[in-house]
Structures are given as C-alpha cells and as structure tokens.
C-alpha cells in the first residue's frame, strides 16, 4: 500500500489544456473520490495515475516513486473500468487470474489467489462462467476481483457503478466500501454522482473545468462549501441560491430578490449594500410566522419527506420537510431559513464569505 501525491499536474491534448495544475495528497489507505460534472478532468486525472495518459507537466508519485515515466504495469495499480472491460473470451477465473498469468506466476498460486478473491466477492459459483452469462452486478464484482487478485498498492475506480440500475448501485456502493474497510488499500474513485462521493469517501475532491474546487471530508464540504460551485454540486436537492445585498442597518439581514428580507446570524466582514449570494439548503427552511412569503408551486412527497417548490420574491426555491404538512399548490406559506446554517457567497467571484 502506498500514498499517492499529485503535484501541479497539467494535461493538454494538443493545444487544449484540460487539467490546469492540480495538487492532491492521498494518504496511505485513504479512500478518495474525485467528483465533478462530465468534462471536468476527473477521469483524465485517474488515467494519468494509471499511466494510460501521459502527464504533460507536474509530477505524480506513488509511494516515494515518481511514476511520470513508469509504464502502467510497473506502477503496481489496478483499475476497474466503467464498462468493466472484462475479457469476453475468458472465464471469470481466467479474467481474474490474467495479470498473474502474464507475470508467469505458478498455476497453483494463481488458483489460490483467484479463489481467495472470489470468496471475498461471493463469486465462487461463477468462476467457470463467461462474462456474457453474468448479470451487471456480477460483472462489476469480477472487475473488482481482477483488481483484488493483484494485491496492488492502489485501486483505481473509473465510474464503476454508472452502468448499474439504481438499486444495485446502492448495494454495490456498500460492498465497495466494505471491501475497502477490509483491505485498506489506497483507493482513488471517480464518479459524477455526488451521493456516491458523499457516502463512500474519506476525502472528496471536487473538480470543475480542470481545477480542484475544494477538497475535504464529505461533511466538511457539505457544511462549509468554499464556493458557489461546490455548494451547488454537493447535496441533493441542490442548495437554493438567492441573489441580493447585505443590509446592516436596522438589524443584520439579507435583501433578496423582490426585496425579500432573509435573516443572517453573523456579519461576514461586509459592508452595507454589498452584493452577495444567499445560499440555503432545502432542509434548512422552517415554517415560521416571521418567514419570507412564499407561494407553493409543486408538492412532491417522497414518503420520508415532502419536497416543496415555492416562489420567494419571484425566485423558485426548494424546501424539504420531514413533517407531513398538508400543502397544496397555490398555498401561501412563510419560509424561514435557519440563520446559523445559511451560506453567503461573494458576487460575482462566488467565493465563500466567512464571518
């Protein structure tokens, strides 16, 4: 096992630069999730760690070794691909043992290691089957088995769950996390799904347009997003943003669209009239008599909670309630954000304004 250090890494395809100087420190045994919208460079970065793409500038280390010019097979990594990339003409056992076979490992050793990995993943009954005869989840497991068998220093996952249906995805999420807790191998996991990132990661790296927007523990990112992008990306349903100005006179408050006044707990070192974006998560609204006037547009009960789309000062916001209120479209309610849990962002830079 080993740490992975990414220092000032740049990637360009011809004249187009897609990764603009990324620094990430991944500790030994850590589960790091690279998350971001498609085209943010997260997969490219992963492939650079794997050695499938070369590094235009900067440095990647696995352990103490700089691997910029080390071919993939000598990096001691294993990768799970989005489409699994199982060899269709080999049985499950042969797929899992292929890397050992190439290394010239003795047959008995291959067999025991494949068997051990298959036991961990519950693949024993399928060892003699071909990939075509397996379900999506089983194929996914074989792909992981292929990685486990090699006992590498680092596991790389490239959107491994996006080809599975929703229910299976949740199950596999847990399985991968359990596997990591069991093997404690350093893992870099790429996904565009922020829920996967939140639930699985020790550390999340949010990427956007080839740069790292923020990195930290999942709840850190949730509670204190550095900027508008992270605030909007992490959390579902997404955080509500209301543009307006900070008002200090006559009690600290935020003047939102249509002159709506919203509460603020602390003054973010800001002057009267400073333009800003007011961010509030859907679950941080409460019904209160002194709340902002809102007109309900849509009510979406999910069973465990009720999502309400309402208009505040002409802007749509989403509020989530755990209580079973009787809401109907057209009803007027008063929504009050919890002032301790709201976020303020500078306009137009989008940076967090901290108290």
């Amino acid at each position, binding site marked *: 096992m080993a740490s992975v250090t990414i220092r000032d890494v740049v990637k360009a395809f011809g004249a187009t630069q897609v990764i603009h100087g990324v620094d990430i420190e991944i500790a030994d045994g850590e589960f790091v999730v690279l998350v971001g919208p498609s085209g943010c460079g997260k997969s490219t970065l992963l492939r650079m760690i794997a050695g499938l793409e070369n590094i235009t500038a900067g440095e990647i280390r696995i352990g103490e070794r700089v691997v910029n010019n080390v071919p*993939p*097979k000598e990096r001691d990594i294993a990768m799970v*691909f989005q489409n699994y990339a199982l*060899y*269709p003409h080999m049985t499950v056992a042969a797929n899992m043992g*292929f890397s050992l076979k*190439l290394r010239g490992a003795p047959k008995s050793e291959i067999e025991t290691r494949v068997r051990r990995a298959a036991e961990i993943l519950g693949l024993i009954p399928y060892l003699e089957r071909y990939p075509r005869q397996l379900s999506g989840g089983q194929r996914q497991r074989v792909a992981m088995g292929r990685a486990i068998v090699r006992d590498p220093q680092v596991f790389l996952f490239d959107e491994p769950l996006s080809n599975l249906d929703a229910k299976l995805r949740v199950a596999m999420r847990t399985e991968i996390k359990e596997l990591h807790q069991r093997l404690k191998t350093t893992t870099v996991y790429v996904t565009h799904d922020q829920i996967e990132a939140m639930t699985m990661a020790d550390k999340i790296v949010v990427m956007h347009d080839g740069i790292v927007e923020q990195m930290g523990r999942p709840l850190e990112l949730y509670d204190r997003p550095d900027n508008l992008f992270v605030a909007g990306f992490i959390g579902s349903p997404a955080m509500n943003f209301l543009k307006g100005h900070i008002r200090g006179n006559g009690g600290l408050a935020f003047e939102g669209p249509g002159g709506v006044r919203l509460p603020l707990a602390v003054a973010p070192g800001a002057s009267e009239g400073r333009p800003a974006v007011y961010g509030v998560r859907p679950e941080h609204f409460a019904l209160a008599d002194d709340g902002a006037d809102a007109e309900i547009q849509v009510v979406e009960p999910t069973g465990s909670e009720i999502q309400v789309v309402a208009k505040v000062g002409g802007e749509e916001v989403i509020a989530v309630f755990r209580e079973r209120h009787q809401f109907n479209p057209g009803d007027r309610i008063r929504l009050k954000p919890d002032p301790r849990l709201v976020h303020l962002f500078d306009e137009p830079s989008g940076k967090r304004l901290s108290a």
Partner: protein
Amino acid sequence: MTDLALERRARPPMRRITAWDRLKVNRNWLGFWFMMPAAGFLILFLAYPLGLGVWLSFTDARIGRDGVFVGLENYQWLSDDAVFWMSVFNTLLYTGVASAFKFAVGLYLAILLNQHMPFKAMIRAVVLIPFIVPTVLSAIAFWWLFDSQFSIISWSLRQLGLIDANINFLGDPWNARWSVIFANIWRGVPFIAITLLAGLQTVSPSLYEAATIDGASRWQMFRYITYPLLTPIIAVVMTFSVLFTFTDFQLIWAMTRGGPVNATHLMATLSYQRAILGGYLGEGSAIATAMIPFLLAAIMISWFGLQRRKWQHGEAND
C-alpha cells in the same frame, strides 16, 4: 340499459371459418410464398447447373451430341490420367500456400491499418486497389511483370547484378507455380485485410487498456486478446478465401492457360479445357465434380470453426 346489452348481443352469426380463411393467416403458408422467389432463383441458377454437371459427368456427352449414361467410366479414365492428378496437386498447393500467406499478410496488414496514423482513410482505400481491379487486368499486368524477355523484375535484378540471365518466370513449371501463387496472394490480401480490420474495430479499446494495466506486452495483447476475439471472423473470412482460391480460374487462365506443360493447371482450368475447348463435356464435368468432395471438406472444417464459441453464448447486453 338492458335494451342496449341485448342489442349488442344480437349481431349476425359469425361466418363459418373455411380452410382457406385459416390458410390466409397461416404464417408458414405466407412464409413459403415469401421464400419462393429466392428459392426459385437458387434452384434455377445453382441447383440445376450443379445437378446437370454431376449428371454430365456420368455420360459421354460431347459438344453437339447428347451423351449416354456410362457410369463411372469418366472417373476411371481420370484416375489413370497423370494430368488430372497434377491438377489436383496444383490446386491443393495453390490453395494451401496462397491461403496461408493471404491470412498472414492480411492479418498483419489489418493490424497495421488499425493503428492511428496520418492519412488513415486514404491508406485503407489504397489497400483495396488489388481487389477492385478486374482480375483479368491484374493478371495481364502480372503476365508482363513475369514476361520472359521484358520482365521488370528480371531487369531490376540484372541491373543490381544479382542475376546474369532473365528468369523464366512462366516458362519453368515451379517458377510458374510460384508466380501464379504470388499473383493470387497479391489479389486476395485486401479482402482478408479489410474484413479482419472490420473485426479488429469491434474489439473494445478498453480491453487493451485493461490488459496494459494487467501487464501485457504488445505480443501478449495480440496472443491473448486480439487473436481469440478475432477467431470467429477469421473462420468466416478464411472459409471464403479457401473456396475462392480453390475454384480460381480467371487468374490462371489469363496468365498461363495452365501451362507450361500443364504445370499450373488447376482443376477448374483443366475442366474448362477438357469440356469446352476439347469438347468432352462428360470428362470435364467429372473433373469439376471431383472438386466437390474437397470443397465439402473445406466447408465442414469451417463449419466447425464457425460454431459460436462458448464465450459468445448468453446474454448480449454488454
């Protein structure tokens, strides 16, 4: 309410279903008629000539004279005919050597063409040229290349000082055999290369990436990934190649007419010479019919090669 229900029930009684009604909706009956045009075509242009050919081989028919049934006399005659046996040998040599080389060169070319390189589309198109040039045209070109006096090959080698006298390409039996085999390879490679290239392009690039990470060298990738995944298409393309080569006529006829001294006669050319030029339809047909067992054997081999491999079974939702 009740009236309405009664009214609805009082429809005229259903007509009795006749056999013709049932036939009209019978899928097999309909399918039979859909199949008829194709079947008729095949019977008229394939089965009938084949049957006629086999029948003729049991008669002493000559051009302009209906034959009478003579049993196996033609075959007995051929079994003692050294020229016939030489044509069998030539055909097997021609097919075996040419097919093997066509496969090797075609596969190599396909792999080369599958790489990223500048002007890829143009190079792929250029490769097809031997295939699109009419056979007779390319045969005449080869005829010139292999000419005993004006051969550019002989000339070049002479200029290089490698030989003193012109090589008698088409005048010496073995030279002639290798020359026509070479021409056949040149002509047949594009078909195999392009077909295998199509096969190569169906192999997902992520498999090679996975193999790279698994630590496979380029040769191991070919040996363990490319080749096994290509076997189904290799079976198809080689079946066709063997059948076409075994029954080749044009190239030989345009280049050597079976000469020198029957050294390059294939069964097809010999059959034509005996049946049409010589007028002995019965004997010519017997030579042609004698090709059938060989072709059947080739088809049987590829039939088993073509069987879906075990890994191709199962769901296709990958």
